[in-house]
């Protein structure tokens, strides 16, 4: 068993050495191209103010790696995988003390809003290359498979009206949303600079177009004035049908990376070796 595994490993290593296989670790920052804008409207004494909260899903630092195979000098096929880190953002919209107001209306969210959106992406890509000396311009495109997990942590004052008086309820409510893999498009255009025969540095402008159907939402925390009230919620878990809760994770940004191309070992005949030796002797 061990022998056969070793044999398979050797064959795999051998084929790896004979192919123009490359690895391309990279990192960069992506900006949400379709942030979700949440409006919170305050009207006090017939004066209106609208507060905007941008939920920048898909924004964050973007480390990843792709493994590819260069078919020839112009074409490559590769498998790209990446995630997003540092995706926690905070927003805060202050609400006035309703006890001091006479004529008012509020709609939308007022309070502290922290959200985090982790995403995982896998993309098989086709690349096209144009080479000029040490510079290689490339364009890549492929279907993007994206899976997400979103956390919303909210802290707000829930006002309770009791016999004509307002009572503030200091509330914390957290939500967790998850999805399955959703298909979109990933493409990039960039430049590689060849440092040596097998090593190059790359800069890529990346565009990802991907909506994500949220499949499940769970209320994970519900506290009023520090007391747990989660057990009072009958349906803490909500399952969503396709199209019912869609989040746009589209993003654009730049990635910087290093590409290492495994050297192709050409199989030469003894004659060819002799000829090359002779020519070198001359």
């Amino acid at each position, binding site marked *: 068993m061990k022998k056969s595994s070793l044999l398979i490993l050797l064959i795999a290593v051998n084929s790896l050495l004979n192919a123009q296989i490359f690895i391309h670790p990279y990192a960069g920052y992506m900006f949400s191209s379709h942030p979700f804008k949440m409006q919170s409207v305050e009207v006090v004494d017939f004066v209106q*103010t609208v507060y905007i909260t941008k939920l920048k899903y898909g924004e964050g630092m973007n480390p990843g790696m792709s493994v590819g195979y260069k078919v020839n000098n112009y074409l490559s096929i590769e498998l790209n995988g990446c995630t997003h880190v540092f995706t926690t953002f905070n927003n805060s919209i202050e609400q006035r003390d309703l006890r001091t107001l006479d004529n008012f209306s509020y709609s939308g969210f007022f309070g502290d809003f922290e959200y985090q959106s982790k995403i995982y992406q896998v993309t098989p890509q086709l690349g096209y290359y144009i080479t000029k000396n040490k510079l290689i311009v490339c364009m890549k495109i492929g279907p993007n498979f994206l899976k997400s997990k979103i956390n919303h942590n909210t802290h707000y004052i829930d006002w309770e009206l009791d016999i004509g008086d307002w009572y503030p309820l200091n509330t914390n409510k957290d939500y967790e949303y998850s999805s399955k893999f959703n298909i979109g498009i990933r493409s990039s*255009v960039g430049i590689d600079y060849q440092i040596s025969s097998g090593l190059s540095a790359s800069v890529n402008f990346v565009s990802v177009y991907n909506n994500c159907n949220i499949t499940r939402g769970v209320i994970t925390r519900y506290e009023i004035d520090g007391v747990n009230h989660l057990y009072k919620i009958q349906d803490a878990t909500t399952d969503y049908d396709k199209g019912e809760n869609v989040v*746009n994770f589209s993003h654009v940004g730049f990635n910087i990376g290093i590409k290492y191309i495994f050297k192709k070992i050409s199989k030469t005949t003894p004659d060819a070796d002799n000829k090359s030796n002779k020519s070198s002797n001359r």
Partner: protein
Amino acid sequence: MNKIIVLTLLFVIQLNHCNSQSIYLKASGGFNIPANTQQSPEYFSFRLYFPNDVMYKVNLSNSGFSIAEGINFHGAVGYNLNKLLSLELGISYSANTKKEFEASPKLEYALNGKTNWDYKSYSLIPSILIGQSFNNSAISINIFSGIGFSNLKVKASIEDYYNNYSFDKAISFSYGYGIEYLYRLTAKIQIYISAGLNNMFYTPRHAELVSSSDPLNISTVYQREIDYVTEIKDLRLGNYYGDQQYLENPEVRLQETLKLNCIYSGIGIKYTLLKNEKK
């Protein structure tokens, strides 16, 4: 203005003195398909008014909205800097073909209507092409950005009731990249196919109700016109129902950008201007 004319003339004279095969003309037509969808922008509220001050707001929201699907026409003049690089200045026209969107998801206890979007965009597109040739064919990577203006008309309707809005010609921006495959037919003529990604952005600043099934709807400026602003802060509203001073000003709403992300494809012809070779 004069400076622009002089610069243009100098550019044309310069082009005339360029190497013979450096200048070319291109024309293409094609189709766009959406790369992405967005929540439909809420540029206005569609309300139905009935006697005795009864009013219903119609749900028009669509979560899978995109008007990027449509046709495109492109014409360009280009200049080969060398075998690798070319510069182009193009004019592009695009219009949506998917126009109608029903409210989706439908709300259970509301009136669900539909909207009809008519969008046209005209852009000036400078681009840079990086290419390589193989015998009779060539492949180029095309990177571009554009500026132009767009026309938008939106009709909201439910059964026989409708409101028809016309939006201002606001400046629109675009950027994208793609790939072109060219095949040489003769020394001067090449045909090509192109495909890539294009992102267009249009943010209207003003809209007007141009027609309505309900004459009541066009009785005041507030009901006829909408101004879109970047921020609403301390906006004075009407103090009471029917406040004439308030109703004689346009409605104020927050700006929303229409984002058209599309995969474009096209087929075209390239004509290279040949001149006598310099000896």
